[in-house]
């Protein structure tokens, strides 16, 4: 046990994901001994600010600083195409490509029975409601390229297809920008299996 306030901080930090007791101690000592007062104030203010100012977008479930998130409130985005992702960081990744001009839908995870996550724990119903109400013509499913992401994509595709809407799934394969040389066998093997014909 440390001095009251130090122990309080250690206890709070240990509640965070992937931070164990030892790491919590290290961070607490770092904040105590090596962080300036200004930086500490900024950190504290940033934590308070996300709780006070950031909400969840009622339409797509992305983070939102205003009423709707910045995509849903941007009239230049194409409202007829929706990209379905597992979590908000995936939106950032898709945005970085600069290739997508539609809207998003955040599921809040993927189907994973061993973690007790089924469709009811995800925002699948909300997606269907949006499709029925908002004049969407294409849904791109960009869940993660793993077993749970695949199962989720298939589940959603089966629900949406009968509605006469185009459903696509992003291709999985080699990370772009990565070197072929450094790709592991499994990723490379999958990419080879999903190979396509090219026409010159």
């Amino acid at each position, binding site marked *: 046990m440390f001095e009251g306030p130090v122990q309080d901080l250690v206890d709070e930090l240990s509640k965070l994901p992937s931070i164990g007791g030892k790491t919590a101690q290290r961070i607490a000592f770092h904040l105590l001994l090596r962080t300036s007062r200004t930086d500490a104030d900024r950190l504290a203010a940033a934590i308070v600010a996300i709780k006070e100012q950031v909400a969840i977008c009622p339409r797509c479930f992305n983070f939102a600083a205003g009423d709707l998130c910045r995509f849903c409130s941007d009239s230049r985005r194409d409202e007829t195409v929706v990209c379905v992702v597992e979590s908000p960081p995936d939106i950032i990744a898709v945005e970085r490509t600069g290739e997508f001009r539609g809207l998003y839908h955040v599921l809040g995870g993927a189907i*994973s029975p061993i973690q007790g996550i089924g469709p009811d724990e995800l925002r699948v119903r909300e997606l269907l409601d949006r499709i029925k109400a908002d004049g969407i013509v294409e849904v791109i499913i960009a869940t993660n390229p793993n077993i749970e992401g695949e*199962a989720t994509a298939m589940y959603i595709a089966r629900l949406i297809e009968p509605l006469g809407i185009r459903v696509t799934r992003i291709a999985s394969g080699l990370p772009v920008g990565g070197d072929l040389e450094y790709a592991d066998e*499994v990723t490379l093997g999958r990419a080879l299996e999903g190979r396509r014909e090219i026409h010159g």
Partner: protein
Amino acid sequence: MLIRELELHNFRNYQEAEIHFPAGVSLIEGENGQGKTNILEAIYYLAVQHSWRTSREESVVRDGCESARISALVENRRGNQVRVALGLGKERDAVVNNTRDPRRRQLAGVVTATLFAPEDLEIVKGPPGGRRDFIDDLVVKLRPAKAGVVSDYARVLKQRNGLLKSAALTRKHDAETLDVWDSQLATKGEALVAARRNALQTAMGVAESVYRQACGPGIGAELRAEYACSFDKSGAGSATALQEALKAARPEELRRGLTLAGPHLDDIAISVNGLDARTRASQGEQRTVALSLRLAEHESVAAASGEEGILLLDDVFSELDPSRSRLLVERLASAQSILTAAGMLPTEIREQVSATYSVKMGRVEQIT
């Protein structure tokens, strides 16, 4: 590749030991409990960083010590030498040519080895799980890119079992979600069966020839292994067949909370001269079959990767008659094999050996 020198420091019952190995066949002799298997275990550790005898790394550290060290000088196929070391216990690391890595990543693939241990008899004699593990392991060794096929199936199975388990507990289920997992299990299952069949076919050609050679001319020595698909009597193991089997099994699955159809229940039917090897072959025959399977693994992996590893044969001669033992040693034309034997071997075998070592209470001495 070859191992030229092996140094042990506080590994198992060795305080300090240094062994030089030639190419060809080396034989380690000694009475029970003297440290023969420990030498093979050390080489195996360099290859895969774990042991077939224990999952607890501390148990290989010499009693009363904090860490152990295995060092070796290995030579790749082009004759280039590489120094490797593995720290176990408290000082966990790997060193390859003076570069140290506490996470041991760089050691992957530097040393390659195939092990035959007395426990391998279970592949022939034991329940189907051992044969499935053998073939799945072979799939990955022959074609590393297929590792995903094996792990994907395992993951889908785990998720599907999770869903069935909660369905059995709550007595209600979501049919659409289960349909999705059926479909995933079926496609991944089909891929797994195809990969296993492929690996089996590659290895069996070799295994049959090893078996014939070990038995010697003049006697019937027909080894066969057929993939026995549990859900598709036509044997193809197609996704459609698995879908149908799952459909038929669903009520029972929902009751028991478990996946009751799929390649996780498949087997390999091994026979010798038309008789089931598991129930009808003799102990010596079963051991010869197990050894033939391992040698087949060794040779086919070498052919696929273009580099032959070290063959480690622990206690192969027990239960084999002198003629079989001699014929087997003749087959070991491999780059380098290291054998152990408790007690003296017949002279015909010793004549084919390039170096012999005697082990007594954790001390090794080269005798020829």
